[in-house]
């Protein structure tokens, strides 16, 4: 994979908001990315349960999807989210880090269609799933 794409992917994973949430890039391949986010009490959505807020899970999946788009050969080094739908399947287990896997399942000249899955330690039961559309090239 060309270095420019790797750089673009690293760049996205290092964005201020991604950094604030402690995200780290684990794997990147053509049109595919895995990002992790550690458990953090500041990201709790409900004090009574200690479960991470959906908004933080959504940010992780959005970032993983952006990296997947940027690492696709047809991406052209820039992308923006057009639409993202998240299904919250179950609460993430408090104390466990989250991992989001995102892939481009179709890329046209102007749009990348992505799918993403977020899991905690129990990888057989997804915490959330996402589908979305991202711009390709200049927005």
């Amino acid at each position, binding site marked *: 994979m060309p270095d420019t794409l790797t750089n673009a992917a690293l760049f996205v994973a290092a*964005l*201020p*908001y*991604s*950094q*604030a*949430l402690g995200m780290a890039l684990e794997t990147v391949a053509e049109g595919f990315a895995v990002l992790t986010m550690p458990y953090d*009490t*500041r*990201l*709790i*959505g*409900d*004090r*009574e349960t200690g479960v991470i*807020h*959906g*908004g*933080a899970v*959504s*940010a*992780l999946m*959005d*970032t993983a999807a*952006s990296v997947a788009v940027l690492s696709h050969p047809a991406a052209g080094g820039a992308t*923006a*989210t*057009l*639409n*993202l*739908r*998240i*299904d*919250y399947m179950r*609460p993430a287990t408090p104390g466990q880090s989250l991992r989001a896997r995102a892939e481009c399942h179709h890329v046209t000249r102007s749009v990348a269609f992505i799918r993403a899955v977020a899991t905690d330690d129990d990888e057989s039961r997804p915490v959330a799933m996402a589908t979305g559309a991202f711009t390709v090239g200049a*927005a």
Partner: protein
Amino acid sequence: MKRPEPVHVVKQRREALLRGLVDRVPYIGFLGIQFDRHGDELTAILPYHDSLIGNPILPALHGGATAAFLEVTALIELAWTTLWEGVEAEGTVPDGPFRLPKTIDFTVDYLRAGLPRDAYARARVNRSGRRYASVHVEAWQDNRARLFAQATGHFLMPIN
């Protein structure tokens, strides 16, 4: 006819209810989101901060920050709307903790780049049943008519 309550009593009660809901969600504090209340109308405010940036070149807000802002606004509006009537009828805020609805799904429509400045959002509960609710939320920055993002979410209501 019942004498109207003193305005400070009414305000204290409503603020206490709002605070009780917001305090349940640490992530609201992490993002720095505040709520402006006028009667039963809530406006969420996301004050700009450098850590919310997702595109340093434009620069633009991170889509994840925008999504979280919209989801928090929808959730608090739904919980607020659900509890409002009872609290106003009783004249007291029930003892917490309040049970919050759970997000089933959330779909965000990104209309334009979020600028590096404060953002505002208001949500509307389109349907609120015993078990499920559907909420629409809109966010803008400088101009109320030029939304930069909108979203629709479905929520599972808490069992009381």
